[in-house]
């Protein structure tokens, strides 16, 4: 448990500043943002209660919002992501089930499972961010396209960063 906790704190301390200082200025093709900070939320322990998770997500989202000048939008999307994550984790368990004290990471459950787990969650998060930010559905296709590109780019960065941060243990 302690080992996991240290990992989580380390990830928060690394990715949140990285998100607001580096990745905020980094927009691919003029449409795709990269929300690498979502790894912090995705890697929270499976056993964690949904309420604690949502409160952590709220504060993470708010921290990002302050720098993106969108107070509340990332927070709302992150809370939504955490709420869905709780149910998604139960529906989409790995074949052998979750192991105690294993964080839901690529190194523990494999690339295929992680993408299946992360992709829909990141997509829903991006959709919420872009639709709330646009404020209406007039930019429907633009917002959807943006969310799609953002999801792919975020996922690529989240997967790559895991190979650096948490190399396979076995």
């Amino acid at each position, binding site marked *: 448990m302690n080992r996991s906790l240290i990992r989580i704190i380390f990830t928060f301390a690394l990715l949140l500043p990285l998100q*607001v*200082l580096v990745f905020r*200025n980094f*927009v691919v093709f*003029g*449409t795709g*943002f990269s929300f690498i900070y979502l790894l912090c939320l995705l890697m929270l322990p499976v056993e964690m*209660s*949904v*309420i604690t998770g*949502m*409160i952590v997500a*709220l504060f993470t*989202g708010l921290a990002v919002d*302050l*720098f*993106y*000048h*969108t*107070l*509340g*939008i990332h*927070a*709302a999307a992150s*809370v*939504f992501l955490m*709420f869905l994550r*709780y149910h998604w984790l139960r529906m989409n368990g790995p074949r052998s089930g979750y192991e105690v004290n294993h964080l839901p990471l690529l190194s523990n459950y494999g690339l295929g499972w992680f993408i299946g787990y992360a992709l829909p969650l990141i997509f829903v998060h991006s959709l919420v961010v872009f639709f*709330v*930010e*646009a*404020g209406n559905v*007039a*930019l429907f296709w*633009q917002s959807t396209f943006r969310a799609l590109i953002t999801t792919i780019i975020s996922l690529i960065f989240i997967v790559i960063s895991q190979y650096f941060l948490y190399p396979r243990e076995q």
Partner: protein
Amino acid sequence: MGQLLAFLFKYRAFIVFLFLEVLCIWMIVGNNDYQRTAFINGASGFIGSVNKTSRNIGDYFELSRVNEELATENARLRALLLSQMASEVTLDSTEQVSIVADTTDTVQYVLRQAEIVQNSIRNANNFFMINKGSRDSIKPNMGVMNSFGVVGKIRSVSERYAEGVSVLNTKNPVSVKHVPSGRVGTLQWGGTNPKVSDLFYITPDVTVQEGDTIVTSSYNAIFPKEVMVGTVASVTEDANKTYLQIKVKLSVDYGKLSYVYVIENLHKAEQDSLVETNPIDQQ
């Protein structure tokens, strides 16, 4: 009662979820509208300084381009100054030249130089932050421009930083004039392409051609009149032929903003107070 409590306990996660989302919506509605509340202002001090540090690093990579822009602008201003003097002195004269101003009343606009420390162009509603604040007498509703044209207007101010609404903001219309015809319309960004904005309310009887210049109109107390905005990129009639649909290629490259001028209109209070004394005319 017991059943009610049991029900609440059973669905506690969902209730907490709803509560947190309502909290977020409350923040979104309260803080992302046109006039931001005091909360973000207080935080701007810290956030501004983080943005400034991150900006300082980026500055080095832009130095040569900024230098070039400033040199070009200097040359233009110098040429302007010389053309003003030309009637009185020759270029090689060593005489001292004084520019005569009748009274202090002739000065209507004061420009203050500032640097952009944070800027966005990829959202539907974009904002920027400058490194001057109330300490440098920046106030809300001052205009912001650079040597290429209109940038936006100041929305909220903290001690050392100020935040502005970019022209690339779907909720920030600017009153502009079509130069060849002198017709006044409204420039409002469509939310997608940061190089192009839409011009509304020009009727089809006006001849608008590609390449026509669009400048700010004199119908506002924020910008001086005839500040460059852009050029017409395309013109089409809308379906019921009420107005022309005009796309304007913006003269400012918002992706590369670095140094800007904040415009103070010394007559603004007077202009506004005159409007307010006639409440019937407002709308």
